[in-house]
Structures are given as structure tokens and as C-alpha cells.
């Protein structure tokens, strides 16, 4: 292993991680300095629910594709979402496994599993790029950050895929690029839309609490399949 690869796997990551943690903490302090709106009214709606049930349901919403019309009726998009985010998780995990527990990758099964997950995420990334560029609705709501984040994540998946075996037999360049990209993401994420996972618990907590108090969450519905309309 070259000194540069060692630097990329360790020092660079550690600096980038510290930077990300610092920015995130600052971000959270900033968000928390806004007062939370207070609800004074007595609960409405079904007696079977309450704010606690509401926010648990709200948090779990993402794992219940049947809960929202938008995920229920666009199940393929939902599968893409799952695959993409599993890929992100696997690629992040890889950035810790390679420097700190490389022996885990001696297992061919784990290598295949990680490559499958990350490979699928890469394909989804490409599909998402096409959707964002080709769809008029998606184009209208996209910012340079949206395109850039998606493109870079997709490229990152490609290098993560190549890096999974942690082999330098064909050269180190794929590993170096993967770690440099990882470090770049760690530093860039707090400034981009990718930091949405930081806000997710907040938005869903407050929405869930309100909707639980008002008897709207968990959603009750009479199923029927022929009411779907889509424009995309």
C-alpha cells in the first residue's frame, strides 16, 4: 500500500469526519435555536391514537410503502429508493471496513453481497439521473446541487463497487479515488441536500406528533386500487 493510499484511508477520512461532525453539531444547534411551535388544543380524532403513536408511525413511515399514496402507487420508485439508500449504507460501511477491519473482506460471500448492493445502487443512481434530467417535473424542481449530489454519489458507487475486494493487484487508483470521494462527501454533505437525513428525524417527529394528536396518524384508509392518477 502506498503512503498516499494509507493517507487517503486514514488521515484524510479522520479529518473529513471530524469536519463533518463539527458542521453537523453547529447545524443542529442552529436548528434547535428556533423555538418549537406549541399545540395547546385538546386532542381530536380517534381516541386510539396520540402524539407518541403519531411520531412513531411517522418515523416508521419510510419502511411502510403502503402507508402513503405516493409510495403505494409508485412501488418501483420505492424499490429504487430502498436500493439506493442500502447502497449508501454499504458504501459508507466499506469506508470503515477497509481501513479498520480489512479481514472481513476475505469472505467472498460478503464481497459478493456488498458488490450486489452497491452495484444495484449504482444502476438506480443512473436511473435517477435519467429521471431527473428527462422529466419536466423533476427538471423544474432540481438545483445544481441536486444534479451534482446525484452524479457524484453514482460515481462514488462505481468506485466503491470496484473497491469492495480491497485488492491492489490491478493498481491502487480505484481505492484512492473511492477514499478521496468519500472524504469529499464527508466535507460536502453538510452543505448539500444529502444532509437531509439530519433533518428527517425532526420533520417527521413534529409532523407525526401533530398528526397523532389530531387523530390523522396512523392513516386510516379504505383501500381501492383504481383511484390512482399519475402525471410522471
Amino acid at each position, binding site marked *: 500500500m502506498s503512503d498516499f493510499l494509507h493517507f487517503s484511508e486514514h488521515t484524510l477520512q479522520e479529518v473529513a469526519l471530524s469536519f463533518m461532525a463539527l458542521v453537523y453539531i453547529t447545524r443542529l444547534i442552529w*436548528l*434547535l435555536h*428556533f*423555538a418549537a*411551535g406549541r*399545540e*395547546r*388544543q*385538546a386532542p*381530536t*380524532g*380517534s381516541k386510539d*391514537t396520540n402524539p407518541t403513536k403519531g411520531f412513531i408511525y*411517522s418515523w416508521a413511515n*419510510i419502511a411502510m410503502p403502503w402507508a*402513503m*399514496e*405516493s*409510495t403505494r*402507487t*409508485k412501488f418501483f*420508485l420505492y424499490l429504487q*429508493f430502498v436500493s439506493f439508500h442500502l447502497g449508501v449504507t454499504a458504501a459508507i460501511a466499506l469506508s470503515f471496513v477497509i481501513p479498520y477491519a480489512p479481514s472481513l473482506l476475505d469472505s467472498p460471500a460478503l464481497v459478493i453481497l456488498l458488490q450486489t448492493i452497491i452495484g444495484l445502487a449504482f444502476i438506480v443512481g443512473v436511473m435517477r439521473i435519467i429521471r431527473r434530467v428527462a*422529466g*419536466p*417535473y*423533476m427538471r*423544474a*424542481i432540481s*438545483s*445544481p*446541487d*441536486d444534479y*451534482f449530489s446525484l452524479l457524484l454519489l453514482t460515481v462514488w458507487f462505481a468506485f466503491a463497487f470496484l473497491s469492495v475486494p480491497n485488492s491492489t493487484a490491478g493498481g491502487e487508483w480505484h481505492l484512492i479515488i473511492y477514499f478521496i470521494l468519500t472524504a469529499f462527501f464527508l466535507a460536502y454533505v453538510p*452543505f*448539500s*441536500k444529502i444532509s*437531509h437525513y439530519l*433533518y*428527517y428525524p*425532526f*420533520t*417527521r417527529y*413534529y*409532523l*407525526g406528533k*401533530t398528526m397523532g394528536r*389530531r*387523530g*390523522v396518524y396512523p*392513516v*386510516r*384508509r*379504505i383501500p*381501492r386500487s*383504481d*383511484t390512482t*392518477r399519475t*402525471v*410522471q
Partner: protein
Amino acid sequence: MGNKSRSYKAEKVIQGMGRKLNRQMVGSLLACVHCGNCTDSCHYVLANPGDPTYAPAYKADQVRRFFKRHYDWTGRVLPWWVKAKSLYTDEELEELKDTVFGKCTNCRRCTLNCPMGVDYATFNRMTRGLLVSVGIMPEGVAVVSKDQWEIGNQMGVLKEDYLETLEWLTEELQAEHGADYPGIPIDKMDTDVVYSINPREVKYDPRTISDAALIFNEAGENWTMPSEGWDMTNFGLFSGDDDLGGAVARRLYEKVAELRGKTLVISECGHGYRSTRCEGQNWAKWDINFEMESSVITMLRYIKEGRIKVDKSKNTEPVTFHDSCNNARSCGLFDEPRELLNLVCSDFREMYPNRSENYCCTGGGGAMSMSEYTPQRLKSAKIKADQLRATGATAVVTSCHNCVDGLTDLIKHYKLNMKVTQLVNLVANALVIEKEVAVPAEVVTAAAEGELAGYRILVADDEPDFVTYAATVLEDHGAVVLRAYDGDETLEIARREKPHLLTLDIKMPGKSGIEVFESIRNDPELKTMPICIITGKPELRKLIYERAVLPPEGYVDKPIDEERLLRNIKKILKPVHKDEEIESRK
């Protein structure tokens, strides 16, 4: 940004945002990932395929862009990268107005379909409030807000008119159920129920008040209506003006506290229920010490407790139910109306999607008061029209006065063969009343025999059966009846014969009843002719009362029985003709 000058109003809006932001709002402004999942959930998008400016995330970005530019570091450092952009001119504020008032009804359907939990409707409302604070708003919003600030209710109903209407409704109830019938108590202290209403009921739909009164009285309720602070609607919800919201809610809460009422019952109105029951206390920063409930829950409770009896075979028409967004998506009120409907109707048909997934009636968020956006509202109403049509019902029930107007408008626009009604009307119709009229009908009839002698009454209706029926009843009581079957004929006879009274149907071939009404009122020779509208389309009341002419002397819904017809005719003729006609008709 630094060198570009900013208008006074734009500066105010930006500063105002800083004061309005709370954690929930900031979370929603930050969390959007532009995934597009919410796009299809908006009725505006569905009705305008190919126009991305209606997409919820696109609309939200028009607000998000100046939030980012001024309150979020990403937008401060790299504005173009995250599409952050400040506001500079009043023209930009006008454009923003068209988005937040004209392209969104704050229905919250996209909110419930966002995986990130972005509550666009909430910060859309906040933006409305910011624009209102600098005087940028649709004309109708300004007018209604002014009425609610100054007169105390959003339709500018004067106290004397309100009290007069309640008195008149009490008289009607007593004429129907006997002189001892309790009627509508006003400002009674220490009651179990204080009943608050939408001013639309006083102005256009008083039958909902008398139906509610009938239900309260039949249930033996100890109830009252307040003489002031009776308006449970709150335009602050639509205009985003929290100060107005707080002031209006406080007015109502204070009155209930003054009357020492135990429960404030809110008549069927989605935005009224949400404002009064939920948001009002937050806006007014007031923790109330009495209960509040929707009249839907009250009526259901009466049936369950055996306090009123209903017979569902009295409502056989196929009905469907439209969930108001404010009731269903912001207050969880969707099961009780269905339970009640199943108790009072024999043919209830579910509409899909429903409950918190239902589509907006398109009249929400104050849209009915913003006439400049009517074409796009009606276009977006296609989604609701399709939903209604698919049910096969001939009546749509809704627990919201705003929805009544929104649905009535779209039903007319899309030529659906449906009427709009409310649960209170259906419950009142299904009531089993044990002690009917106090005085036997024959006695009343006999006593009234000949009472209309000498009067010439013109009955105008395109239904020959109705004309024959009404003419027979009136002739039996001594009147000379003239008959007309279309609008032109009505005008011609009215001009020629100058009858003492005209009963007028609204829907007629040729000139409609509304045109006839207006022509008569504008004719110097005929303008004082008493007119009683008798119609099967009570929802068209607004079309008559909104004319800039004297209102009709009476307005009666079909079906109408002999007793009601006579009572209304006599009520009109007596005061008008008492002096000047008594001599001439002898």
C-alpha cells in the same frame, strides 16, 4: 445582492419571515430533497398536466429560495448552487401571491405524501401571512379580512340582521311545532351547549340553523346561541394572519366564557372547526376551560344516547360523502360523519380516495373569495368532479360550508346531476318527532280559509305539477292565481297584471328565475313587488342574494307542503300589503 435595491415591502417580507420561523417550519424548509414524490398528490398538478409550476415542490421552492438566501448558510454562501434567491421588487411579491394564493389551497395532501415530512401547506400559509402584512393579497381576502376584523364575522352580517334571522327562524319553528316550541335561545347563561355557526348560514343557508335548532330541541338540550362572537369561522387560517386568527378565536372563546357555557358546539364547517377547535388557541395563546366539539359528534352522540330518534328510510337518495381537508387531514374528523350518515341515510356510497387521502373540493384555503383565480380553480376541480361522478350518487354530503360552495360551483361547471347537502339537514329530515304540530292542521286550514281573498298571486315555475299544486292551495284560500311556465312569460304577466306577489322558481327555460328577479327589481314600476323564491336548488341562494338589488321577501326550499307554502306567502303579504292593499282588495 448587496448593490441591488430592495423595495420596502420586499424588505418587510424578508424580515417578517425571521419572526415567523419556528422549528417545524425550518425543518420543512430544509428537508426537501426534490424527489418529486409529492407531485401527483396535488389536484392542481393532475388537472394541469405538463405544467410543472403547479408541482408542490416547485411552489414550495418559491418560498424556500428566499428562506435559503437569508436564513440558511448554503444559500448565503452559494446561492445559485441551491437555487437561493432574494426578493427585490413588488412585482416579485405579486408573483409570489399568485403562487401561494392562486395555486395552492393549503389542503395538505402533498404533506401527507412527502416521505420527508415536509409540510408545505404550513409554510405556504406563513407566506400568505407575510404578504398580507404588506398589503399584498387577493382583493377578496382583503375584503373578508376587513369584515372579520371590523364587523366581527367574515360576511359582514350585522348584529341586528343576525338576531332578526334567529327570531324569524324561531317563529318558523313555532309555527310548525306549536307556540310553546322552544325556538332558538339567545345568550342564555350556564347552558350545556353554546352553538356557533358560519355567517354563510345566516346569509345563504338559514335552514341549517333551524335544522340544528330542531335537533337540539328534540334532544332536550339546554343550549343557546350567542348574540355576539357567534362566528366560528376564521379567515386568519386562510390569510395566514395569526393576529386576525387570534383575535377572532378570542372573541368566540370570550363569549362562551362569559355565558359560562360547558361545551362550544361548532356547526359543520371544516375551516371553522380547525380554526376554533385546534389552531385558535395557539394563535390566541389562550388555554380554554370548556369543551369544544363538532356538531357532527354532537348529533351522533344524541342518537347513541337515545336523545333523538331517526328513521333512515326518510333519506333514500343515494348519497356520498366528501371529506373536508381541514376536518380530515388536519383534525382527524372522518369516521363520525360516516357513522352518522349510515344512521340517517339508507344509501350511502363511499367516494375514493377518502378520509385523509381525499382530494380538496378546490374551494379550500379561501379560494372561493379569490375570484381572480376562479378559472384555474374550476379547472383543477376536474379531479373532484371525476371522483363525484364515479360514486353514482345524486347528492354529496359534506361537513363544511366552504366545501358546499366549492362543490356547488364545480357541480354546475361540470354539469353533474348532483346536489350538495349537509349532515344537519339529513339528520333533521330523518328525525322522528313524536309531538308534531300543536294545533290540528284542519283547524289551521279552516281558520285560514279565505285569508288570501283579493290577492293576485303569480306562480312561476317550469314544473306544471308544481304550478297546479301551488295554484290549488292558493285558490282554496281565496287568492286569484296567475300562472307562468318560463322566464319570459313570467315577466310579461308581471308587467301586465302587476300581481301582489310572485312566487318564482330559479331554474326555468328562457330567462332564468335569477334574470327575472333582477329585471323586476330594476324595473321602476315593479321593483317593490314582493317575490318569494321557491326552488329545488337551495344552494343557488347566493346567486340571488349577491345581486346589487333588494333581496327577495322570501326564500323557500322545495319540496314544500301546503302549510309551509301558506305560512310563507302570508308572512310576506301581511306586512307589505297590510296598509295600502287592504282597501283596494275589498
